[in-house]
């Protein structure tokens, strides 16, 4: 057994424990504080107590939403970074999230009642934004900094359009405002029911494709020489990454930097083998977003801080650190 595998024996249980602790914390924290043993009790036997109601109707869906979105963003970032071989690739930075949010805003305002179909709509938006970003960065041979800058501009454009629509169709956009605020506060079982298949299936699929990412991460030419149909696989894995990000946006609104920080963390712990890092990124992403959400509840209690703001404030320094290490 080689060394990364041995480390995985350590880090997998550690990440799982972190995830469990984050879940308990997320179920128990808030305006009504519930001790962990109490949380476990009402989980096993729901009753009519305030605690049970709070856990089952408010915090459980919220925690699940945070976990699902976090895992999806972490895996999406890892896929995109591996496939583009760009350490700055992140669904937020590449404009994918802003594009998906724009599409969701359009669907809410102009095609209400799409329900579960709003996710493929968001996928389309994210895809379009990614294509724009890549198109404008293509001439420089996808240098990491240019790709990031191009993505930032595409994201700025998409969010300006989103905001304009929100202002011009104020009454109809109300529903989207809550949906797109970059937070998991107030997510219900219905929200989850609408989105979860679009997240769970691609997540499962992505975790199975680690070896394909490994091949592509060697570079397109090498991958091809090793017998991979590089172009098609590159496209497939990128689509999967975009789909995961779009699903996450449909659940929480745009949340930058999760897809940047988590993959770097996972690689730092387990190295370059995506078969090992993809599951770890999923667990870490879920735990990270849950913990950030707990912090967002507590930091300004009883008022809620949008978790997206918190992550942006903390994630930007990390991004700056990364970008500085890359030579222009």
């Amino acid at each position, binding site marked *: 057994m080689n060394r990364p595998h041995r480390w995985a024996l350590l880090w997998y249980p550690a990440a799982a424990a972190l995830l469990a602790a984050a879940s308990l914390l997320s179920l128990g924290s808030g305006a009504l504080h519930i001790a962990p043993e109490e949380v476990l009790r009402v989980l096993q036997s729901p009753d009519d107590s305030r605690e049970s109601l709070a856990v089952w109707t408010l915090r459980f869906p919220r925690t699940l939403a945070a976990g699902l979105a976090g895992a999806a963003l972490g895996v999406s970032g890892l896929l995109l970074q591996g496939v583009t071989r760009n350490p700055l690739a992140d669904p937020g930075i590449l404009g994918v999230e802003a594009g998906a949010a724009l599409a969701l805003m359009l669907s809410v305002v102009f095609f209400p009642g799409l329900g579960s179909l709003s996710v493929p709509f968001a996928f389309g938006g994210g895809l379009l934004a990614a294509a724009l970003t890549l198109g404008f960065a293509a001439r420089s041979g996808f240098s990491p*900094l240019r790709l990031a*800058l*191009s993505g930032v*501009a*595409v994201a700025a454009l998409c969010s300006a359009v989103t905001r304009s629509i929100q*202002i011009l169709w104020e009454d109809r956009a109300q529903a989207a405002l809550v949906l797109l605020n970059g937070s998991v506060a107030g997510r219900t079982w219905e929200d989850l029911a609408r989105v979860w298949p679009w997240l769970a299936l691609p997540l499962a699929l992505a975790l199975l494709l680690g070896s394909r990412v490994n091949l592509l991460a060697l570079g397109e030419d090498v991958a091809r020489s090793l017998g991979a149909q590089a172009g098609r696989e590159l496209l497939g894995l990128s689509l999967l990454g975009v789909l995961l990000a779009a699903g996450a946006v449909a659940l929480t609104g745009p949340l930058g930097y999760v897809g940047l920080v988590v993959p770097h963390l996972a690689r730092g712990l387990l190295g370059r083998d995506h078969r090992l890092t993809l599951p770890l990124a999923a667990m870490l992403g879920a735990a990270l977003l849950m913990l950030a959400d707990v912090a967002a509840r507590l930091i*300004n209690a009883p008022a809620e801080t949008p978790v997206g703001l918190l992550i942006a404030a903390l994630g930007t320094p990390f991004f700056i650190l990364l970008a500085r290490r890359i030579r*222009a």
Partner: protein
Amino acid sequence: MTSAPLPSPPQTRWAQAALPLGLALGVLALAFFALGVGAVPTPPADLWAALSGQPGEAADLTRRLVFDLRLPRVVAALLGGAMFAVSGTILQAVVRNPLASPDLVGVGAGAGLAVTLLLLALPDAPGWLLPWGAALGAWGAFLAVLALARDGARLPPVRLALLGVAVGAACTALGQVVLLRASDHLGGALAFLAGTVYGADWARVGRALPWALTLLPAAWLLSRRLDLLALGENMALALGHRVTLGRYGTLLVAVGLAASAVTLCGVLGFVGLVAPHLARLLAGSLHGRTLPVSALLGAGLVLAADTLGRVLSPPLEVPAGLITTLLGAPYFLYLLQRTAR
């Protein structure tokens, strides 16, 4: 000497003045139109009657409407646009970077964060203090961006822009987190920081006006310094220019302009990027000519954006900053692609 000689174009003083004069007239016409637009539209004839000081109750009413509500807004748009445009022109010349603009090097967001913190600490701070606080914050953010983006002795354009955007995003997020803890009143009072001239009154114009009146002419007086700096450090030194002094002097003017503009109308995205490029396209690369043209273009651009935002779907208003971003972001992408070798 293979090419055939080409006569240089006639560069009379009149031909040189025609462009800024024409632009100024265009901006004036736009301003007159903008004064008539609003929840209660004012026909041009009534507007003219009110402006030319005709007596009468209707004219009085119009006068009050125009002078108290619409004129400060129009002036704010013109000033804000001109200040961002001139600031961007200076930045692009001094850091020799076509992707530079006050909102892309952290200056705008740094000023916004400083204003937020200042009003949070001193809710009754006098109006004149705001631009000073903004300038301090803007300068701090700018120096941080320069330090972060520097790669040895070089300052690569793409790196500067990307790290500038990142530092700006951090400042904005921090400002929003801080504002969450503040009273709703303060939040409402600072809503304009997102980039709009909506609700601009004479008090807000008054705090930025001294800065504009000092720094815009100062920028023009420094135009030859800018020309030299645009030739590069070595060339400027060779021609006997005190480069360090010139660089910091002009950058102080640029940061001061952008910071005080932020206290007037928030961060108007990409104005400081687009206006200088258009100005150079129209007026060439000598700053004596480019600066006034850039200022006029910036003023016209913001006023046009604001007016468009008001007439799109009244009584709803799309902030000017959003519309300038809708125009500017694609232009930025185009520039980014063009600067790739």
